[in-house]
């Protein structure tokens, strides 16, 4: 699903980020469905707020909030991304060929975020239904306060994984030595292997799902105790 050779090209040396995003938004109501963006040079909010099925390929490193709030579109970054890639994504696919900075996929509600390199701290913080597959490692506080969705880490997870997690599923192939508060290892049942296999395939990973361990909520924190429900 990469942009075709006939894709519409926007060069950010000549065009502003606002012009780029306006053109992408306008294309939602009829226009080119294949786009290439050149010379991103770390600019913020590239291809943010898309709301149509289209392919956008960004040739280079991006700044903060790339493909934020994405809906339906497929955005591929041929480089690294800054803070908050695909933050609050609703649906669609975001693929990063390089590394991601902090808070990748933060608060995402749906869709698939793939990071071919590694992600740093707070990957999947407060995720609410997004699927995130990281081919490398993630930094500390991954899936902090995660509520729903899947976080798959093919490498190692840093300290504090899944701190104060609710119902999201975390799969880690490497080490996850220091789990966060109320996060525990859970049994890897057949249904999980099946789900994980499908996710890895979609994420262009050849990792074997049976090599992963699953982590999730022990549901022991204050918020899970029904006796506290009347306290508010």
């Amino acid at each position, binding site marked *: 699903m990469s942009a075709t050779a006939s894709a519409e090209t926007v060069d950010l040396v000549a065009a502003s980020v606002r012009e780029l995003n306006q053109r992408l938004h306008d294309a939602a109501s009829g226009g080119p469905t294949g786009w290439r963006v050149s010379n991103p*040079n*770390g*600019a*913020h909010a590239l291809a943010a707020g898309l709301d149509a099925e289209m392919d956008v390929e960004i040739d*280079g*490193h991006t*700044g*903060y909030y790339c493909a934020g709030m994405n809906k339906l579109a497929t955005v591929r970054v041929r480089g*690294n991304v*800054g*803070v908050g890639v695909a933050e609050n994504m609703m649906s669609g696919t975001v693929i990063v060929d*390089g*590394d991601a*900075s*902090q808070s990748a996929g933060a608060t995402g509600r749906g869709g698939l975020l793939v990071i071919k390199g590694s992600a*740093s*701290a707070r990957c999947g913080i407060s995720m609410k239904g997004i699927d995130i597959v990281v081919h490398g490692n993630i*930094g*500390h*506080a991954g899936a902090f306060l995660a509520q729903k969705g899947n976080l798959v880490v093919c490498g190692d997870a840093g300290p504090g994984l899944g701190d104060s997690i609710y119902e999201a599923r975390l799969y880690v192939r490497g080490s996850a030595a220091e789990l966060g508060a109320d996060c525990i290892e859970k049994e890897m049942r057949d249904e999980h292997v099946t789900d994980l296999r499908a996710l890895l395939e979609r994420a262009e990973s050849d990792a074997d799902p049976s090599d992963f361990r699953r982590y999730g909520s022990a549901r022991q924190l204050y918020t899970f105790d029904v006796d506290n429900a009347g306290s508010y």
Partner: protein
Amino acid sequence: MCGIAGLFSKSSETEERLGAHLSAMLGQLADRGPDSAGVAIYRDPAPSGSVKVSLFSEEPDYPWNRLEGELAESFGTVTEPERIATHALFTVEGEGEQVQRWLAGEHPELRVMSVGEHIEIYKEMGDPRQFVKEFGLETVSASHALGHTRMATESRVTTEHSHPFSTGLDLCLVHNGSLSNHNRLRVELRRQGIEFQTDNDSEVAAGYLTWRLQQGEDLETALNGCLEDLDGFYTFAVGTADGFAVLRDPIACKPAVMAESDDWVAMASEYRAIAELPGADEAELWEPEPGRVYHWARAKVA
């Protein structure tokens, strides 16, 4: 918010144009810190037995030439003051700490921005893009330099509150973040004889490093001490006579990107500042890990 940048040349081409590169980086970081800007430039070492002194006066017509005469009476040879916007640079034959003490005693109206063989600190209020023009940074050659763009959170916007802060001879610090325990720490450091010019939190971090280094610790040990003793958010870049160091707080609240090419080593709050450098596309690029000291230094000639 604030933006910080560091650039270290590995080739003569980069050294030649280091000021222009740093100016472009600060331009990209202007949105992160529109209140004031500053740089620490490491270049043109003073002759043996002399130090360079960068001074700031609020008075536009400050009698710098009279000061030159007074310095010459108290010390050895003194160069004519080089006027750089609101600052003046002298090279004074004498020992750095003595010159600093003399200036503090005789001319409390002046702010000593930096003292050292290599370092020159310049900083001022206002837009960073304007700053680099006023201070002629674009034509400067230097072996390495640090820069800062400030968005004030903890204290007022003045020249003195701007970064970099001197942390001793040839040493300085720039900071992105905010410290919570700076008041208590300032009191403790004053008791140890460290002097402060402002109520700024970052100056306390600079003073803390000065104090640790005075105890004979190396820079890496002193920076590791920050992890224990500083409470708050920080990405620090510390300039030394022969290089620079970077440290982020253990929870990595503030951003930092590092890059290395055959021609340079760079750090910045964001990649868009590094993207201004020639060959950035091809450079090795990474995010410094929290709580880990990174240090570059020019290889010493034996």
